[in-house]
């Protein structure tokens, strides 16, 4: 198969079926055996406002949404106005002919009477399906796959709705026959995908939790984390697990702690506001050494902020959000594949270290559909907590060589104990003496000292034996953007390397230092105002990286990273 990499962007009003259209293109391409990476923005309101869906599809693994688009499909004039600056030579625009865009030189224009054709069909909501038919014909998106997927998507609404959508699709397909196709903008012939799955970041977190053996999930509705609850509400009961919607985020983390004390693997997911509400109970989890996982799907903040937009601004809250001397283990995911495998990691390290874990995802990843290899279940390690072996007298907080004390599930004879938020002695009895507080506080921190070397090393992107002029540090979904920028720069002979930590806290300090030793200048790219990871690096290491931040509710593009690196050379 030849190398190819095409980006479709469909935009219009929130009620115009942009999401359906984009989902269908992504699914058809994935079914054809192509790699997929989608990105969408939509308004926080239920109806109306600007919605955009971008599908990047290619022959090789895709790490981000891309810089801009190759093919733009505008369902209304507003979406054209927002995107017209990106109509560069070589791109194509498909648009509803109710408005007349200015077509720059080198851009191919395909005016389609979407509104008119929909009216003729007597089905005015068919605009997106007419557009889909046109896109299928012009750019070789498998019409067979699209029709099957379309029938599947609308089958719950009845045969008439399915047929109406297929008729509209056919109208688009027919209308497009009068246009001339652009040779550079063609997908190859569809094949049949094997050993691949396609899911969103949120669904992948749900799947990862199932693979890890999750027993209990409790959550409160919040954008952009609710799809995790939706996924687990459907699938966790199949595995005889419990999914419950709590009355608020405080209750959901409380239920998780209760279930975990009862001996079960338990998790919740939320976004920034919910994480704030959970802070106190996460402190209790740390103090009482109760395993718990909180997934924080970050959105624009602070306060209600930008509920549907992209941001990586909860890092400091995740790391430092507790009162008193308390830790959380903080992991962050780069892509959908990580969402599966690192949710397993999160549950594993929570059980292993008897400590709360915050797994950071973000809004664009939450809604990004990506193709990933079928998980190989045999190779995935699932860890259980250390349990008491019934030897000798049981002490819940017994001092051990690695400071991790065996737990005992309720029901175990002779191991009755208390999980308490009060400072306590090894047997759990409250004690406020200087000696006890010093000793037990040290225990709780010391048990985590092995984690930075236990957890997989941060990836170094580039020749680890060589030197670089610039080293780019990134976390979360920004990593995928940096990967592509670095590949492009290195292809030009620019000496640049990347460093991608997935365990954010406790920090893998030695690895940061070693990476810094290879690079003349360090830059940390992240989507927040304060440069939160850069702040942590300055606090924990001897390094003083340049901070490159973006705070506009959108992710970086590879081009932005490239430009910044060039400036620093």
């Amino acid at each position, binding site marked *: 198969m030849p190398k190819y990499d095409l980006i479709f962007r469909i935009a219009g009003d929130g009620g115009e079926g942009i999401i359906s259209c984009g989902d269908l293109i992504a*699914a058809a391409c*994935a*079914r054809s055996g192509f790699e*997929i990476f989608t990105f969408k923005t939509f308004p926080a309101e239920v109806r109306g406002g600007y919605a955009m869906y971008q599908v990047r599809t290619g022959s090789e693994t895709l790490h981000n949404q891309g810089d801009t688009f190759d093919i733009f499909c505008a369902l209304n004039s507003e979406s054209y106005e927002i995107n017209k600056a990106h109509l560069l030579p070589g791109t194509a625009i498909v648009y509803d002919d109710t408005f007349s865009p200015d077509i720059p030189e080198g851009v191919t224009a395909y005016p389609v009477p979407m509104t008119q054709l929909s009216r003729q069909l007597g089905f005015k909501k068919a605009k997106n399906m007419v557009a889909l038919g046109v896109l299928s014909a012009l750019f070789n998106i498998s019409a067979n796959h699209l029709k099957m997927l379309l029938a599947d998507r609308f089958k719950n609404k009845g045969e008439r709705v399915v047929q109406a959508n297929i008729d509209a699709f056919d109208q688009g397909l027919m209308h497009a026959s009068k246009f001339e196709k652009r040779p550079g903008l063609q997908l190859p012939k569809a094949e049949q*995908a094997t050993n*691949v*799955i*396609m*899911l969103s970041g949120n*669904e992948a977190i749900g*799947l990862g939790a*199932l693979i890890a053996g999750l*027993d*209990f999930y*409790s959550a409160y509705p919040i954008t952009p984390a609710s799809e995790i609850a939706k996924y687990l509400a459907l699938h966790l*009961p*199949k*595995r*005889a*697990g*419990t999914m*419950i919607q*709590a*009355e*608020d985020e405080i*209750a*959901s983390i*409380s*239920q*998780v*702690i*209760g*279930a*975990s*004390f*009862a*001996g*079960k693997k*338990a998790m919740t997911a939320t976004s920034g506001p919910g994480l704030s509400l959970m802070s106190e*109970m996460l402190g*209790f989890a740390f103090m*009482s050494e109760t395993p718990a996982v909180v997934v924080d799907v970050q959105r624009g903040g602070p306060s209600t902020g930008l509920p549907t937009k992209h941001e990586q601004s909860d890092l400091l809250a995740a790391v430092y959000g507790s009162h008193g001397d308390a830790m959380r283990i903080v992991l962050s995911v780069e892509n959908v594949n990580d969402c599966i495998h690192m949710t397993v990691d999160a549950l594993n390290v929570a059980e292993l270290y008897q400590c709360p874990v915050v797994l950071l995802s973000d809004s664009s990843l939450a809604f990004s559909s990506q*193709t990933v290899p*079928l*998980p190989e*279940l045999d190779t995935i390690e699932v860890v259980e907590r250390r349990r008491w072996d019934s030897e000798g007298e049981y002490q819940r907080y017994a001092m051990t060589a690695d400071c991790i004390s065996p737990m005992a599930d*309720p*029901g*175990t*004879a*002779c*191991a*009755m*104990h*208390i*999980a*308490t*938020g*009060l400072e306590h002695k090894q047997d759990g*009895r409250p004690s406020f003496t200087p000696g006890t507080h010093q000793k037990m506080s040290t225990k709780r921190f010391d048990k985590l000292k092995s984690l930075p070397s236990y957890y997989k090393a941060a990836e170094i992107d580039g020749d680890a034996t060589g030197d670089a002029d610039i080293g780019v540090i990134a976390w979360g979904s920004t990593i995928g953007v940096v990967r592509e920028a670095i590949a492009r720069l290195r292809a030009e002979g620019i000496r640049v390397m990347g460093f991608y930590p997935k365990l954010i806290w406790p920090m893998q300090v030695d690895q940061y230092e070693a990476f810094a030793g290879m690079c003349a200048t360090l830059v940390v790219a992240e989507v927040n105002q304060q440069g939160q990871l850069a702040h942590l690096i300055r606090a924990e290491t001897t390094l003083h990286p340049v901070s490159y931040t973006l705070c506009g509710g959108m992710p970086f593009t590879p081009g932005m990273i490239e430009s910044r690196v060039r400036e620093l050379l």
Partner: protein
Amino acid sequence: MKESMSPKDYQSGIQPVWCAGCGNYGALSGIYRALVALQIDPANLVNVSGIGCSSRMPYFLNAYKMHTLHGRAGPVATGLQLARPDLDVLVTGGDGDGFSIGGGHMPHLGRSNVNLTYVLMDNHIYGLTKGQFSPTSRRDMKSYTTPYGGIEEPMRPLLYMLTYGATYVAQAYAGNAKMCAELIKGGLEHQGMAYIHILSQCPTFNKLDTADYFKSIIQDIPESHDVSDLHKAMHLIYKLKDKEPVGLLYQTRRPTLDECMADLVEQAGGSKEYDINKIIDLARP
């Protein structure tokens, strides 16, 4: 577990930290007696509490225990009970813990009918923090934070719990440990959310609502009262006006949250052996 458990077998060996004359001793005694009467295995009993004088209860019991956060005993116990329906779950706490900071959780314990027993010791004051006005303080009470007297009406926990959907609602005076024991025993035996309100004097900080005061306002629920009738339970509370009914007010049987969850799992064809590949396959494009 021993063949025959005595009150001593349910004691942790830690002496209560409560002041002399505190009503909570009566509630504790009631709990010990109820546990003896039911011969509950301490290893299968979990006592969950929040923060406050009465929330220290778990330390004095021989059982699995959680001393959690102010106001959060209810949801912690809910998670625990749902995760392990085989355990006996006992929540203990006070009026501030349950109806002020934790007030948002109470409706959900009731409506969900979580299968647990909630013993709430109401002393009409914040004792642990040295005597502030509580959600059940009498309106005109002068306290640490109300030197001119309070300006808010006291809450009516019994009425709330009946309204929220608790399926066992009872009240006792702490000075009557026998009645406390009987009602707590009934609560532990009950399948569903059992709420036992205990009028518990705080001799140190609440000089208004003394043991004598509580004795003067309690009135036994007549034997003729139909405990299965929600309206009559509410009517009884209103009818008594300045008196507090003691005894069992209301009891009914409704599916508990864990029973409903088990039905749901069955409906989904759930089992630990369910092939996860079937779920993964749904994500094939």
